[in-house]
């Protein structure tokens, strides 16, 4: 039942010893970059400063901003000839963030993903269909290599084209799949439309869902609709991609692989650790990366540690499903969106004012983005121009955020004036 029993059930004491050893190694690698060499020197820190796992708190944080400022290869700690792959974010809010990998990094990553998939019962006899986008998006190649590592027959179906996906599922006898939650529901709908009963006409039994915030209710619906067990997957491109934390069959929290990452939950304001069980920002330190080690990376994801041991026997602690973000980023259909991206576009239109509100809600089975924006004084009385304006805003937003939002022009002064920080995003998805 364990892919790597010696690692997955390691005692906490042994695990911490391993973490300390690997943290020292990581510091010794990171110090090859001007960025870490400078900030460690300034603080008079080196691998020798680490004696226990708590000592990680002496180390400075790394932020997404640091990755951007060192774009593209400033944080690469190895000779570029050793780098065999990179993944990059879309870079819509500034410089993209690029993560470089050596062959060993890729092997370790595939191994983590394999461990996750094995944990939820996927074996070399399974047919695993990946409906993630391939290319720069880490959910594509990340699951591909992980499932192959496990020995499963891995179908790189990639994103979209539901009819084709369903044909693969039935023709190839797909037993397990990876999909973002909204797409899983979509597949179930299309199956019903074309007269396929997912429970009788397919062999699907396991679904891996992630890359998009979702509730436990949504998971249960997916399980019911498709007749599967669905497991929550957590990862992010900065931490290579999927395979950072994953649910076990008890479906109560996600085991975070602590042999590969140091897990901290901090108060996003004070940056001090919170009590176990309290919500805070997830901070991760890589422990097995050669090309781009990251120390105390602030993920901006809010979660908590689920206290206590898990009945599955794994000793790696569990985090709760992601509760939100400590910045304003929100995720719709697997796409990361920052309000700044939307604001940037709105401000290009002189017909618009500066006040706007983004509402994300689930309509039917789809997550929809509504952008309400106040008109400026330059309001035109020409109808066709107003409609043209709405259209033009919608187009430009779509180019920016890769989704088509609904745009609504509203009267000047109709949005509440906020005290202090303006509320730009209302996410109603989790209230249902």
């Amino acid at each position, binding site marked *: 039942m364990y892919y790597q029993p010696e690692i997955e059930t390691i005692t906490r004491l042994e695990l911490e010893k391993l973490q300390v050893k690997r943290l020292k190694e990581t510091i010794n690698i990171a110090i090859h970059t001007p960025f870490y060499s400078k900030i460690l020197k300034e603080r008079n820190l080196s691998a020798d400063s680490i004696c226990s796992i708590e000592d990680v708190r002496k180390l400075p944080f790394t932020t997404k901003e640091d990755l951007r400022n060192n774009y593209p290869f400033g944080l690469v700690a190895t000779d570029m000839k050793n780098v065999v792959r990179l993944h990059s974010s879309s870079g819509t809010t500034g410089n993209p963030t690029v993560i470089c990998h050596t062959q060993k990094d890729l092997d370790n990553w595939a191994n983590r993903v394999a461990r996750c998939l094995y944990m939820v019962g996927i074996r070399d006899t399974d047919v695993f269909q990946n409906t993630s986008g391939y290319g720069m998006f880490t959910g594509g190649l990340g699951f591909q290599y992980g499932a192959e590592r496990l020995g499963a027959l891995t179908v790189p179906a990639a994103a979209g084209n539901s009819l084709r996906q369903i044909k693969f599922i039935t023709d190839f006898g797909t037993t397990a799949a990876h999909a973002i939650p909204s797409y899983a529901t979509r597949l179930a709908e299309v199956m019903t439309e074309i007269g396929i009963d997912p429970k009788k006409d397919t062999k699907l039994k396991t679904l891996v869902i992630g890359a998009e915030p979702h509730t436990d209710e949504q998971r249960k619906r997916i399980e019911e609709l498709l007749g599967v067990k669905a497991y929550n997957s957590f990862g992010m491109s900065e931490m290579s991609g999927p395979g950072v934390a994953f649910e076990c069959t008890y479906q109560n929290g996600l085991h975070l692989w602590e042999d590969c990452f140091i897990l901290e939950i901090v108060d996003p304001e004070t940056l001090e650790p919170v009590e176990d069980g309290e919500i805070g920002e997830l901070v991760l330190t890589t422990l097995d990366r050669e090309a781009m080690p990251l120390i105390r990376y602030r993920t901006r994801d809010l979660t908590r540690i689920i206290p206590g041991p898990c009945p599955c026997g794994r000793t790696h602690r569990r985090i709760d499903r992601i509760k939100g973000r400590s910045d304003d980023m929100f995720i719709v259909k697997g796409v990361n969106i920052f309000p700044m991206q939307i604001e940037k576009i709105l401000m290009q239109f002189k017909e618009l004012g500066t006040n706007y509100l983004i509402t994300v809600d689930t309509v039917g089975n789809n997550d929809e983005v509504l952008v309400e924006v106040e008109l400026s004084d330059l309001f*035109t009385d020409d109808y066709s121009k107003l409609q043209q304006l709405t259209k033009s805003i919608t187009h430009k937003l779509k180019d920016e955020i890769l989704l088509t939002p609904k745009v609504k022009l509203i009267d000047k002064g109709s949005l509440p004036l906020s005290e202090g920080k303006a509320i730009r995003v209302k996410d109603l998805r989790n209230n249902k």
Partner: protein
Amino acid sequence: MIIQQLSVFLENKSGRLNEILDILGHADIRIIAATVADTSEYGILRLITSDTQTAYKLLKENKVSANLSEVIAISCDSLAGDFATKLKCFSEHGINIEYIYCFSVKSKAFLILRANDKDAAIKVAKNFNLTMISEKQLTDL
């Protein structure tokens, strides 16, 4: 012969039209003609008033999205066919009417119209001897 018309953006919210008309009412501004065009999300209220400049200023002060635009007005007989004859003069000379609304007082009908090219529209109206109404004449009605 150009008439200032007040255009107001109306969010589709119950009571919004009332609020705006109240602002004008309290300032004793008379409404001579009004029309509302609407979509499912918003409407545009268009007004000819007894004191358009003051009305415009007041609405701005009350943070209403409003704008001034220029229209022309012609009088017609409220007889069948008269509208058609008059509008034909414009279309035959390649002038597009963006919108039109009308009201009548006794046997006289007044057409308020917005053309894509107002100067050309005025020229056509003159050439065909259409009776154009000035802003003063309208407010005196």
